[in-house]
């Protein structure tokens, strides 16, 4: 995908802490009213595409996509939603142990994921299926973790996409350390921009409370590393609304640490793309860390184990359905006649076939050989463990020869 023509505003750039502090000032000045987390008032985020599918301009950010690129974004979002629906169905049928749906967050994930350059490294939570898709990772990969056959099967070096992290926030420190390494390697701020690299760390609104995440802000600012902290504020950490995690809008947290923070309409794939691209560019150019709060909504349950009716009302969900990320880009495509009905049918069909393929392959996923639990514990192995493995194998061989157990 060609790059959007994103202008990075001075309000998220700035190499010096002083500039960042000023940014904090100005950004805070822009929304002196209620915290957007309160929900009663539209937050003042960057938006380029309204829920009705209108393209709107923003003083500092813009995109300039070809028709094909616009259609590509729609296709990405539609397919990852369709795959997500299939995964939920597979869980309901007992084929997955659990599933963490991305429903509602497609724009945040595709917008940011498509803004990544091949050389950039991404650190996900457990919900970034859309980002995986952008990295070209086979959609079956994350299902291994949720089915319980492995811990996620992709090659994190080859795909430039690290493993899922279930322990909330832990990956933000890994991302920061990785970005320190990028800087050490002289791979940011260099003259040859194609050799520069950036790092993106995904996390949720709930994660902002964890010590680790705040430590990563300290580290990133002190070492001025090329990282973008990408927070998908989907309004909930399981049952707890974002007000339980923060009283100030989340993007303002960055200012207190001395780097830029910006809020974007996370259901607007165009704005998310533009803002993320600008932040990644700044990181690659050696301008240091920044934070993006993608203001979005978890339209489904936290996971398939969750029952959101216990803690939120239907009308809230309905209100957010009006702001659906896919609906609005479809409206744009229709209004601007970038795509017609046959195109949409075609993508639906393509998505269905991806889903069918996924299903078939999940059903065929073999259980691992139990003895493999002893493998890959230590790069250099362990004699103690080897002995356990041998006992384990002998014990199970005993059953096979004896027939059944007691």
């Amino acid at each position: 995908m060609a790059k959007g023509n994103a202008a990075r505003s001075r309000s998220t750039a700035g190499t010096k802490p002083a500039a960042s502090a000023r940014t904090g000032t100005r950004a805070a000045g822009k929304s002196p009213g209620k915290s957007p987390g309160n929900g009663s008032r539209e937050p003042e985020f960057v938006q380029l595409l309204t829920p009705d599918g209108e393209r709107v301009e923003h003083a500092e950010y813009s995109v300039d996509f070809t028709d094909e690129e616009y259609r590509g974004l729609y296709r990405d979002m539609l397919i990852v939603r369709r795959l997500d629906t299939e995964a939920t169905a597979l869980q309901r049928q007992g084929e997955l142990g659990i599933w963490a749906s991305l429903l509602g967050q497609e724009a945040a994930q595709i917008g940011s994921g498509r803004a990544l350059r091949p050389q950039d490294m991404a650190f996900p939570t457990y919900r970034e299926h859309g980002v995986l898709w952008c990295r070209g990772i086979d959609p079956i990969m994350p299902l291994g973790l949720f089915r319980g056959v492995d811990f996620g099967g992709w090659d994190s070096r080859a795909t430039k996409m690290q493993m899922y992290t279930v322990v909330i926030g832990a990956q933000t420190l890994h991302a920061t350390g990785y970005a320190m390494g990028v800087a050490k390697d002289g791979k940011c701020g260099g003259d040859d921009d194609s050799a520069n690299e950036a790092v993106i760390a995904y996390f949720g609104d709930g994660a902002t409370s964890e010590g680790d995440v705040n430590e990563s802000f300290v580290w990133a600012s002190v070492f001025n590393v090329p990282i973008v902290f990408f927070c998908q504020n989907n309004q909930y950490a399981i049952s707890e609304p974002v007000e339980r995690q923060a009283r100030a809008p989340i993007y303002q947290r960055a200012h207190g640490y001395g780097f830029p923070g910006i809020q974007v309409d996370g259901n607007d794939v165009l704005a998310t793309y533009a803002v993320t691209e600008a932040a990644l560019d700044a990181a690659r150019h050696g301008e240091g860390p920044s934070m993006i709060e993608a203001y979005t909504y978890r339209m489904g349950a936290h996971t398939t184990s969750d029952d959101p009716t216990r803690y939120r009302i239907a009308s809230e969900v309905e209100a957010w359905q009006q702001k659906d990320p896919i609906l609005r880009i479809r409206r744009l495509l229709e209004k601007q006649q970038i795509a017609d009905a046959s195109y949409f049918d075609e993508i639906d069909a393509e998505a269905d076939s991806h889903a069918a393929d996924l299903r078939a392959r999940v059903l065929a996923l073999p259980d691992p050989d139990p003895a493999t639990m002893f493998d890959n514990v230590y790069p250099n192995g362990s004699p103690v463990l080897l002995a356990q493995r041998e006992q384990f194998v002998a014990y199970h061989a005993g059953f096979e020869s004896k027939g059944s157990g007691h």
Partner: protein
Amino acid sequence: MAETMTIGKALNSGLRRAMEDDPKVVLMGEDIGKLGGVFRITDRLQKDFGEDRVIDTPLAESGIVGTAIGLALRGYRPVCEIQFDGFVFPAFDQIVTQLAKMYTRSGGRVALPIVIRIPFGGGIGAVEHHSESPEAYFAHTPGLKVVSCASPHDAYWMIQQAIRSDDPIIFQEPKRRYWEKGEVETSASLDQVFPLHASRVLREGTDCTVVAYGPMVRVALDAAAAADEDNGRQLEVIDLRSVSPLDLAPVYQSVRRTGRLVVVHEAPLTGSISAEITARVAEECFYSLEAPVMRVSGYDVPYPPARIEEEYLPDLDRVLDAVDRTFTF
């Protein structure tokens, strides 16, 4: 009055009663309010006791335990829920360096009556970090006590005893057994029920002693029934209940009679609580042991993917195999 209920419900009822008995008892944790906790152990408690006593906290475990310590310093009796075993580690520093040591550091002036509830162990088909058994870390930490319940009756009473105790207590709940039912004698008085830090013989036997706690007690009992049926061997099953301090007198007595001991738990073998039990029994019952103590446990590997967790978890067959092995010496 005896009622039949699940372990989950028994914990919920025990918490409710503790809150009724003492207005200083407050519950803290992630999603314990409207949601009632991911396992519904605090179901309806926020509704009935209010947001001031059942507190949905920010998502940070060190914060949960750290602020609980502050609340205890103010005279409250916090009961913290750690959502899953694998998420207690961000709180480890507050637990080990602060909670465990405060009473000693204050020269006995400041007790911290805090209970940390942890649903623990595997067997529910969960993803990584949701099936850990961290009890050995806590048992190795002076100043903490560690208990685990195995039946609805114990769940109901032990949680109340733990809350009533002035000691800091790690309360490990056998999550895979939450749905198992049993009789709870609810009309007893808290002062008179079986003591919190005592182990208990659940089934008498003469041939081999089997010690377990938490989710493995069911496995031990099933193994005893199977052994009886298979070859008439009588296993004596002891529910440890208190992982720290250990109450091994009943175990010593039993081993002096049976001469054989098998200890069962889910946690990885090396440095586990079965090592401590073995070391003590090997000393105390040096002349009685007919065979080395056998340990049936998880392996020294990270908890495996769910589809093979049954091969990791001790089961009836592995316990009986260990019993058999004690007879080969």
